[in-house]
């Protein structure tokens, strides 16, 4: 695998992360389902998952950049599994609505597991790494530039969204409205 192909695949990964973050926003805005603290935590891990591909796009593919994504995906999978286990008992309706039969936290676990497998597969190709082991800048095109800025914009939107939802206090366990927009009686 060449360095330029690896950079393109990393840019595709950034678009996949952008899709996940946008889908979470869509559920929040259209279905008016506010994310719980564990849901937000999984969302932070999807956002943090973008750091590795961003470094790969800017500095060229490097094993340590993939390691960042692996650590993040492992933490995200653990957080999602925690929420799956909280609702695993028979008769438990789960938290929020289901999409194609699975709740969002189940999809999140699947997403993190897929990320781990894909990152492992990418690490199989030594040809993408610089011969001396030092990161070398890669020539990123407009496709990759757009992917990075799209993800940064979506993460910045989450800053505003969580501020509106939680205000300046701890986020409620079962949020039903935006605390910062709530008018005091």
């Amino acid at each position, binding site marked *: 695998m060449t360095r330029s192909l690896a950079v393109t695949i990393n840019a595709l990964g950034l678009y996949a992360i952008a899709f996940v973050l946008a889908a979470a926003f869509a559920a929040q805005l259209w279905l008016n389902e506010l994310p719980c603290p564990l849901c937000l935590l999984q969302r932070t891990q999807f956002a943090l998952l973008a750091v590795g591909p961003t470094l790969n796009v800017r500095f060229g593919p490097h094993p340590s950049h993939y390691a960042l994504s692996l650590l993040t995906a492992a*933490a995200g999978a653990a957080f999602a599994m925690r929420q799956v286990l909280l609702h695993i008992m028979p008769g438990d309706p789960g938290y929020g609505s289901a999409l194609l039969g699975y709740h969002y936290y189940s999809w999140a676990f699947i997403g993190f597991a897929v990320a781990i497998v894909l990152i492992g597969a990418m690490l199989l190709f030594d040809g993408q790494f610089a011969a001396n082991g030092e990161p070398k800048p890669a020539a990123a095109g407009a496709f990759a530039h757009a992917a990075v800025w799209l993800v940064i914009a979506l993460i910045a939107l989450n800053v505003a969204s969580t501020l509106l939802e939680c205000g300046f206090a701890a986020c409620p366990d079962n949020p039903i409205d935006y605390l910062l927009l709530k008018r005091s009686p």
Partner: protein
Amino acid sequence: MEFTALFLAITIVMLVAWCGSRTIALALFAATLIASVATYLHHATDALKLAF
């Protein structure tokens, strides 16, 4: 509030990774990942109703 801070930290990590120093980006990433795990441990207080 803690999640606003986490998302803000990740935004800064992404901006540094894209525009700034690689070393600083790696250090900020480590701090943010540790902060997210700490936030998880703070929130994961409900007992799991499991029986094996």
